């Protein structure tokens, strides 16, 4: 049994934990981080990064097919999805190693093993060969993240019924894939797999794919998916499945109780995630979780002094950039600085890396009206930008929701090529309380897709040119 004394112990090295660790080291704290699997957490190893690496390869593959229009002939018979898989693993590994390098550089002690909080200020870590380490810490941050949620009747076996992790680890393409859940992760897998030729069926309980996004954004993506022969069933739930000789036979129930059976080779269930709060010793702290989430205050303090919780274990949006920001706020609070409390939910960007991409923040027009704003919206089409036409990316639009009285920007919903990048200009306008005219009057480089942002703001001023 070895012992460590530290200013701050962080449980879990995902984008919440490892960013918190670096920030704490910058502020002069002695930091220990405890991780039972790989540095970087879900995000780097089995989440954001490998999925975006697959998406990038899918885009290369799609471009190769577009090159046929230039007279290039493709022989796809040697196409090896295994190589796509390997590229995604090497991106993940490279970044996970990068986190290891950052830990060293910032003199952060990494303890490999599973941590359990025994009492405030004390964590026991069980490492390889049952090796125990006691970590005494003045402060603790819980950042143990989340794992895929299974649904009754669809337990993950990771052979035929897959979680997102199982899907990321596939080394061969399924011929037919059914995806339950059309949130960001479900839609991204639909995009990836169908790009490489898998027949994809997307099933969603609610009334649109990407239920959290603006209905128009969802419509544009749905139209594109349909063009690509991705079958979409909304207002539909899966009742159960059977393994048959032809594959999995999945029973669906659509609107008005209409039943339908689909046969597929694999089933991917991406309907939600569960926080990892069950086996970390919360009971030893007297913290009661709420639906699995740890209740926290404005600076991510729990009810126990010197114990904080951030990231997917907290009931804020389950996103890597939220986890990182929460880590920074918690650490600055621990270090006695005075960070701005909490995160304004309207300033959290959401990004879906499909083609077209979908990126947004803040309110839709309908939600803004419900909140009492005198809300209006403008919608500027991508085809109004020369760059979109020149790059064969004319589908999409920039929607800006604003208050007609103060001109306050209330939300933005961008659908189209590079949407996940160009959103940030609008988000900066919102977060710095700029007005539409500030963006409208700024010169934007021609030809760029960012011109659509300028035009949508000019629309608010009655001065849009290309519409």
């Amino acid at each position, binding site marked *: 049994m070895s012992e460590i004394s530290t200013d701050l112990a962080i449980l879990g090295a995902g984008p919440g934990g490892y960013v918190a660790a670096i920030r704490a080291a910058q502020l002069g704290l002695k930091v220990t981080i405890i991780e039972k699997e790989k540095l970087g957490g879900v995000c780097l190893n089995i989440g954001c990064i490998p999925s975006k690496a697959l998406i990038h390869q899918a885009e290369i593959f799609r471009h190769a097919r577009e090159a046929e229009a230039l007279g290039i002939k493709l022989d796809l018979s040697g196409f090896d999805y295994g190589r796509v898989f390997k590229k995604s693993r090497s991106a993940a590994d490279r970044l996970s190693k990068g986190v290891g390098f950052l830990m060293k550089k910032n003199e952060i002690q990494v303890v490999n093993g599973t941590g359990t909080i025994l009492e405030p200020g004390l964590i026991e870590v069980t490492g390889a060969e049952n090796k125990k380490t006691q970590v005494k810490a003045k402060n603790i941050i819980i950042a143990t993240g989340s794992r895929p949620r299974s649904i009754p009747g669809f337990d993950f076996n990771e052979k035929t019924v897959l979680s997102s992790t199982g899907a990321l680890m596939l080394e061969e393409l399924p011929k037919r894939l059914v995806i339950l859940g059309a949130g960001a992760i479900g839609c991204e897998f639909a995009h990836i797999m169908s790009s490489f030729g898998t027949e994809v069926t997307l099933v969603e309980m609610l009334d649109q794919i990407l239920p959290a996004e603006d209905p128009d954004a969802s419509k544009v993506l749905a139209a594109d998916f349909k063009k690509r022969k991705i079958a979409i069933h909304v207002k539909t739930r899966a009742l159960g499945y059977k393994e048959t000789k032809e594959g999995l036979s999945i029973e669906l129930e659509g609107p008005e109780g209409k039943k339908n059976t689909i046969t597929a080779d694999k089933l991917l269930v991406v309907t939600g995630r569960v926080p990892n709060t069950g086996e970390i010793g919360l009971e030893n702290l007297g913290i009661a979780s709420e639906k699995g989430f740890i209740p926290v205050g404005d600076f991510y303090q729990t009810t126990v002094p010197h114990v904080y919780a951030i990231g997917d274990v907290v009931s804020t949006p389950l996103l890597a950039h939220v986890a990182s920001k929460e880590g920074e706020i918690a650490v600055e609070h621990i270090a006695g600085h005075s960070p701005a409390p909490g995160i304004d939910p309207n300033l959290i960007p959401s990004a879906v890396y499909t083609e077209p991409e979908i990126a947004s923040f803040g309110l839709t027009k309908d939600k803004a009206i419900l909140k009492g704003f005198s809300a209006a919206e403008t919608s500027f089409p991508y085809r109004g930008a020369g760059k979109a036409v020149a790059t064969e990316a004319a589908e999409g639009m920039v929607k800006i929701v604003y208050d007609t009285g103060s001109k306050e920007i209330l939300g933005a919903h961008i659908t189209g090529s590079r949407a996940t990048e160009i959103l940030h200009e609008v988000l900066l306008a919102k977060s710095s309380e700029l007005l539409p005219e*500030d963006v409208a009057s700024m010169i934007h480089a021609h030809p760029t897709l960012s011109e659509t942002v300028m035009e949508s703001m000019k629309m608010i001023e009655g001065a849009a040119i290309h519409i």
Partner: protein
Amino acid sequence: KPAAKKEAVTTDGWVKASPLAREIARQRGIDIAAIEGSGPGGRVVKKDVESAPTRAGRPAASGF
């Protein structure tokens, strides 16, 4: 940041000013609430601060 506090106390409510204008005013000890803004929506911007009189009654040096 005492200057920012003082400004919040001395004016009733929000002074519209760009962050850069605020920072320059703070560094030069200029009361931003006393400056008329020429930016979007009457916002005080850098050039307004630079042409404003300093405490000593002289215009602040423009440029560096």
